[in-house]
């Protein structure tokens, strides 16, 4: 008999057992996702420690961790992370603001859609990296061109997501609003906004993902600070551990920013009828 079942018998309460089970599941569920990377890291650590591989170009986790701690101790990691974070925040903010205005206008008004959407779709077909030389010419090599590139990357998923979401709002629900004589503003606030929110949040998450992708491109094209700079620095000075440490930092802040959107949106999306993953 397991410890849990023995406790249940002693306690005599099935509810108590269920609650304990839920607590256990809550603790173990995130750990499950770590299983694969930890196993791979541990395996590679053993391979290098046993001398079966040098680990010079692909350093083991212990070396990466040591580099990570060194970079943090000198403050280099925090400084570069903050610079990158500021660029993504600025690009994301601008991209989302412009995309929200244009996505809302084209989704809501067929006339505006006919006017703007063909041009925007044509621009979307251009690989965003192709803008880099032009942005550098127009805006210089410093922050403005980098932030603009990130904003362009963020713009299209948010614009398309919002426009599509508005266009596909259930006509029957809009009719409920009409039957209750909602004004234009009330219709937007009470029907359209909540109806498009799930798709909008999803498009924000896609946009943010592209923002992180584009900040790397922006920093690789020329930067004296930022996580992208650490990547280039590690490459030029032959320090693979620094490259991996920067990649890990990207993963952490990228995931954290995505999680932040999910966290902020969660209270507004409790009503969704979705397949629960738990």
């Amino acid at each position: 008999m397991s410890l849990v079942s023995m406790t249940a018998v002693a306690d005599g309460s099935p509810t108590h057992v269920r609650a304990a089970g839920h607590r256990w599941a809550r603790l173990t569920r995130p750990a499950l996702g770590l299983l694969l990377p930890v196993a791979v890291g541990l395996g590679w650590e053993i391979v290098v420690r046993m001398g079966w591989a040098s680990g010079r170009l692909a350093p083991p986790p212990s070396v990466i961790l040591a580099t990570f701690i060194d970079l943090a101790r000198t403050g280099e990691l925090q400084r570069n992370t903050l610079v990158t974070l500021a660029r993504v925040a600025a690009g994301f903010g601008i991209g989302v603001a412009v995309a929200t205005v244009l996505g809302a206008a084209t989704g809501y008004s067929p006339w505006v859609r006919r006017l703007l959407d063909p041009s925007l779709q044509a621009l979307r077909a251009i690989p965003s990296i192709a803008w880099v030389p032009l942005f550098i010419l127009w805006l210089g090599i410093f922050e403005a061109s980098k932030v603009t590139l990130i904003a362009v990357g963020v713009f299209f998923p948010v614009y398309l997501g919002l426009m599509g979401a508005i266009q596909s709002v259930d006509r029957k629900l809009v009719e409920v609003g009409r039957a209750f004589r909602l004004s234009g503003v009330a219709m937007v606030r009470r029907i359209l906004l909540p109806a498009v929110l799930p798709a909008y949040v999803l498009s924000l998450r896609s946009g943010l993902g592209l923002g992180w992708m584009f900040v790397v491109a922006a920093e690789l094209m020329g930067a004296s600070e930022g996580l992208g700079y650490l990547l280039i620095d590690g490459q030029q000075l032959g320090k693979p551990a620094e490259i991996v440490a920067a990649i890990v930092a990207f993963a952490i802040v990228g995931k954290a920013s995505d999680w932040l959107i999910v966290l902020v949106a969660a209270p507004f999306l409790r009503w969704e009828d979705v397949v629960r993953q738990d």
Partner: protein
Amino acid sequence: MLVLDRVSKTYPNGVHALGGVSLDVELGEIVAVIGGSGSGKSTLLRAIGGLDTATEGSILLDGDRIMAPHQKIGIIFQEPRLLPWLNVADNVGFGLGDRPKAERAARVAAALKRVDLADKAAMWPRELSGGQAQRVAIARALVPRPEVLLLDEPFSALDAFTRADLQDHLLDLWADAKPTLILVTHDVDEAIVLADRVMVMSPRPGRIFDEIDVALPRPRDRQSAAFDFAKRRVLAALDRSLNRAATAAEDEPKADAGAALWW
């Protein structure tokens, strides 16, 4: 009083849905509209509700011309159409947005109690059964106290037991304030259980073909001979409206031929 004067509707694609429908409905009267496909029943209801505009003729409610949704008119659709992001109580109070919070809460609570869903106030629409969701929709439509309530096949998606239950429930609710009810249905039994008058419509374009008074006392016994007689009259009128009487065998009663078409 609701007055429809030669109401016609032609859609932009050329479909002539309504051809000069005239009808007077007294306050508190229950009128069922029944007819075959393409007879313009739902178009008529949408025009009365102000969701569609008539291309000719006029609809007047207490002298006001109806060109858009009107505060004295409520609508219950075929599906509950509850807003999934609002809980049950907020859905019921959806039409009371301009009222003080306390009044809104009191009216919502009373309405939920009236439809036996007081304990579901905090639930999401996705957590309700079909019958419960439709009761919430009824409560939502009744809470603003409309003078006219339009019902577009409101129980057609429900099983027979729930449907009969909700028909009785609707009559109970109607008895509270006695609004005018205009009900579009495919269900002859439903029309006779609920209505004072059954309007039979003929198709293409939709016209009122016949008008049958149902002068039976309420509650109506679905098994009674009088009920059966009224049902046969409606079915016979439906047969004629669809010009299908000739399809019945010579020795078959006309009403039974109609029943075959409708059941």
